[in-house]
């Protein structure tokens, strides 16, 4: 069985597209081959900056012949039916066979498709693949019409087996396939021919090309580490950069150089970011001092002077880059020393955050007010939280962050220290953005927590106030991430917070800010009264009073009345995010629903505690049976209530109990209810669920011994009231009717 080797040689392929392209080539060609009947044993795709390569092992030498039989019309069918059948099979009448069947004589067509040689199929499949290749962006060149990621120069396409190597005859837009390729652009530019995949990789390596991207990456990493290690240093890990650099070179040569002394005092993050973004250098750290002292660059060539010229050039470029960074750092630090971070934040008054939601400065003021009120609930000092919120985004106006947006927050932390602000405030500058993704660390410092929550709540309520919530895959302001951030901050810090008040306050202040500029004079006055109320009684208190208070009719009332619906809608959005989050932790979705049905569901920590307690009990045998018993009680009760049109919520009387099992249930319910109510005083949902689970035996015993729908109407009513007590008792942690089962 032959092996297939394909190489598409082009001008430099963008690094970020290579891995995907190698995979697409493998997938598209092998799918095409299989569809044409050519199965294979194995296939692998490779990419370098200049080539996409596919190796297929154990391909069939030809596709198998196919024999297909098709049943046609009866022999005595009208001529039209026969003609139709001939058209659909492509045969003539004399090719058909007439066969006797139980239904009479019927025409049969036997279609023989002969097998085709692999080379014919490969040629077709490869041409179709090249012509429809899914590059993220492709181009034309010269006078041709073919599209490729960059100009395509050569096609190598050979089938090989023990007998020898055969070039697959193929030509695409004037490029004829052959068995030849070239080596490294500078080190081995001559053409050579190849026999098969092994021969190809060996000759490529001799021609200074490492075919596999993983091998190039390993090589880079190992050389960088040993160069650093030899001088008692370590490489700062950066997998993204490693993958990118491996896509920029065919023959990686690692060179390590020193950073000029004048730049070593720059923050490590600045050095790292500047070197990575501009130069694609790895940072080399001194483990003793934590400072970045050297860099590693990866050249694509072995220079005659061992890379001395290359290294000198790179150092020079780096020095120019770092001079810029140093200039920004010094300017920013000078600005902070003379006007503080608040002074630095001044230009944010001119920067629009979102046209309906005002400027960055207005947003910061709102966050500061919220942070101040959240502070005591999360154990932070109100004044410190407010200060932190006021300065946390000041670095957005710094020169450094203008140049390197990814350093937002990090620079704020450094500049806060330059100003001499507390560690807590400095930390909040960086941490209030967190968590940025599902795996990012959640802030735990109280001041950071207060600012982080205020930041996210302001953002979410703002976009809710202007009806810009995420839809489908569209979430341009990353609101889902913000909500998940709030959820994780609350849960991981064990914060029991009633989010409703946050939402009401945020929505109200946004609504006022949006509507005030265009309000009529007297409405403006009314809105000002609300703002006054907020100034005197705090955001939360005033928001709740305003929304629940009597605001009458008209413009102001319309604004205020819109808040509760939006607040509820935002809470539902949080519940959806919470469900996604908890399902990720392996929580049953119906368990989450059961917990969310309970009052106070804006306190997400309580919701989660309820759900965890319920899930834990459901995993026991008692718990599972309790739910069966509960369901049975609930069903009987519901039917009776519907039939009788009454609610059986009078307390049952133990004196009407007939048998021991019934009396036992009374006793058990009594005990359970007192245990449960005691546990619920401290929100101990596990103990409460445990007490419920103990009812499983008595409930089972009751149903075994007693018929609820007794002939005796007094007994029946008493028992239905007893079932009601079961339902009431078991519904105190979560709504068990929401459970599936």
């Amino acid at each position, binding site marked *: 069985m032959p092996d297939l080797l394909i190489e598409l040689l082009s001008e430099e392929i963008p690094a970020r597209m290579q891995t995907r392209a190698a995979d697409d080539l493998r997938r598209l060609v092998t799918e095409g081959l299989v569809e044409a009947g050519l199965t294979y044993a194995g296939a692998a795709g490779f990419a370098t900056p200049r080539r996409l390569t596919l190796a297929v092992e154990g391909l069939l030498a030809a596709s198998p012949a196919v024999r297909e039989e098709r049943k046609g019309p009866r022999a005595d069918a009208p001529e039209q039916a026969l003609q139709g059948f001939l058209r659909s099979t492509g045969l003539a009448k004399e090719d058909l066979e007439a066969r006797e069947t139980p239904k009479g004589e019927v025409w049969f067509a036997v279609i023989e498709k002969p097998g085709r040689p692999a080379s014919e199929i490969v040629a077709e499949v490869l041409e179709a693949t090249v012509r429809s290749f899914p590059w993220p962006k492709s181009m034309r060149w010269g006078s041709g019409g073919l599209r490729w990621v960059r*100009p395509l120069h050569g096609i190598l396409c050979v089938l090989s087996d023990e007998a020898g190597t055969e070039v697959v005859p193929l030509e695409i837009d004037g490029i004829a396939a052959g068995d030849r390729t070239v080596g490294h652009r500078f080190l081995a530019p001559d053409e050579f021919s190849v026999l098969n995949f092994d021969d190809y990789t060996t000759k490529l390596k001799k021609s200074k090309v490492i075919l596999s991207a993983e091998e190039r990456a390993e090589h880079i990493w190992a050389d960088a580490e040993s160069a650093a290690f030899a001088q008692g240093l370590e490489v700062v890990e950066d997998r993204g950069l490693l993958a990118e650099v491996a896509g920029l070179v065919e023959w990686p040569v690692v060179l390590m150089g020193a950073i000029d002394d004048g730049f070593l005092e720059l923050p490590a993050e600045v050095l790292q970011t500047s070197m990575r973004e501009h130069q694609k250098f790895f940072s080399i750290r001194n483990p003793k001092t934590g400072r970045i002292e050297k860099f590693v660059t990866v050249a694509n*060539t072995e220079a005659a002077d061992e890379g001395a010229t290359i290294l000198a050039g*790179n150092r020079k470029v780096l020095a*120019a880059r770092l001079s810029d960074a140093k200039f920004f750092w010094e300017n920013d630090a000078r600005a902070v020393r003379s006007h503080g971070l608040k002074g630095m934040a001044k230009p944010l008054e001119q920067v629009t955050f979102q046209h309906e939601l005002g400027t960055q400065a207005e947003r910061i003021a709102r966050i500061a007010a919220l942070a101040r009120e959240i502070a005591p609930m999360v154990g932070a000092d109100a004044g410190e939280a407010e200060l932190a919120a006021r300065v946390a985004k000041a670095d957005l106006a710094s020169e450094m962050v203008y140049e390197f947006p990814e350093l937002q927050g990090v620079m704020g932390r450094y500049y806060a220290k330059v100003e001499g602000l507390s560690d807590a405030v400095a930390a909040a500058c960086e941490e209030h953005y967190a968590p940025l993704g599902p795996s990012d660390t959640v802030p735990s410092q109280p001041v950071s927590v207060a600012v982080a929550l205020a930041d996210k709540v302001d953002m979410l309520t703002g976009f809710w106030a202007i009806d810009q919530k995420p839809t489908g895959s569209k979430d341009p302001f990353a609101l889902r991430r913000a909500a998940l951030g709030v959820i994780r901050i609350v849960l991981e810090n064990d914060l029991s917070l009633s989010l409703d008040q946050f939402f009401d306050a945020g929505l109200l202040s946004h609504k006022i800010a949006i509507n005030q500029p265009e309000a009529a004079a007297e409405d403006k006055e009314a809105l000002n009264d609300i703002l006054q109320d907020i100034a005197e009684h705090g955001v939360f208190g005033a928001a709740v009073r305003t929304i629940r208070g009597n605001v009458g009719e008209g413009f102001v009332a319309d604004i205020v009345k819109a808040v509760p619906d939006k607040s509820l809608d935002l809470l539902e959005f949080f519940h959806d995010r919470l469900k996604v989050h908890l399902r990720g932790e392996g929580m049953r979705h119906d368990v989450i629903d059961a917990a969310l049905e309970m009052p106070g569901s804006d306190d997400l920590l309580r919701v989660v505690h309820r759900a965890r307690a319920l899930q834990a009990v459901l995993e026991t045998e008692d718990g599972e049976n309790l739910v069966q018993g509960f369901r049975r009680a609930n069903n009987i009760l519901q039917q009776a209530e519907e039939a009788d049109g009454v609610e059986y919520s009078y307390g049952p009387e133990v004196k009407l109990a007939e048998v021991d099992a019934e009396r036992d249930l009374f006793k058990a319910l009594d005990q359970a209810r007192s245990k449960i109510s005691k546990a619920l005083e401290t929100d101990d949902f596990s103990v409460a669920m445990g007490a419920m689970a103990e009812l499983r035996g008595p409930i089972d015993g009751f149903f075994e011994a007693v018929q609820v729908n007794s002939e005796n109407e007094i007994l029946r009513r008493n028992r239905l009231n007893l079932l009601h007590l079961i339902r009431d008792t078991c519904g105190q942690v979560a709504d068990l009717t929401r459970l599936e089962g």
Partner: protein
Amino acid sequence: MDASQTPPNCFQDVILRLQAYWAAQGCAILQPYDMEVGAGTFHPATTLRALGPNHWAAAFVQPSRRPTDGRYGENPNRLQHYYQYQVIIKPSPPDFQDLYLGSLAAIGIDASMHDIRFVEDDWESPTLGAWGLGWEVWCDGMEVSQFTYFQQVGGHDCAPVAGELTYGLERLAMYVLGADHVMDMPFNDPASAIPLTYGDVFRQAEQEYSRWNFDQADTAMLFQHFEDAEAECGRILAAPADDPKTGRAIIMVQPAYDQCIKASHLFNLLDARGVISVTERQAYIGRVRALAKRCADAFLETEAGGKAA
């Protein structure tokens, strides 16, 4: 291939060698366009000639102005007025990369000693309604050229495709000559009777223009000139092609395109004066693009644009 064994010794030597090299490759060596432009791409020899079916090969130095980059002559490598070297060949030759590497060798960059890399960089000019794919070319970690295969100009597909090279001459020459500050770079042969540095030629001009660009340019006048240029561009293109005086059809594409270039530069000046807000910015860019688009449409109606005479 090596034009000379000795490396260049001054700024103009780098330019002269590029001129000689591309002349030897068959390019017409044009002179700079006599208008203020932000980049060599604005030269009609690039923008307009990239359109239509006619073949084309040209190379030229183009003085370029970026008012916001002015640093009063103090920054080692930022200037509000600098030079670009442009090569434009249509259709792009199959060995365009090798030709380019040959030009580096001609100015003393020997590929066996340096690390030359083609790093993805897609080019887009929102004001010209143009885009292409290609790379920035790195030499030892420094960007020395922009290498682009034009795909669209003025909203029209380029067929055949033009290949365009842009060298930032000061930066490239500084690297080749080992100069750390642009103003210290020798402009002519340092052994000349009257040796001149780049600073001798341009430092004072950088200071004067920086002041004017940032603080003194009369913005009301610039806004008015922008309106005038836009109006004139539209008027010229709307004029009937038939010229009553000569009795010929003469579409006035280049005069119109001059006004488009003018509008673009006026926008850059206004931007440097900080009088264009973020929201207005897009609108102004859109107005210039509309002019460029109309010029491109009109060029395709002319003989140089491939219309049969």
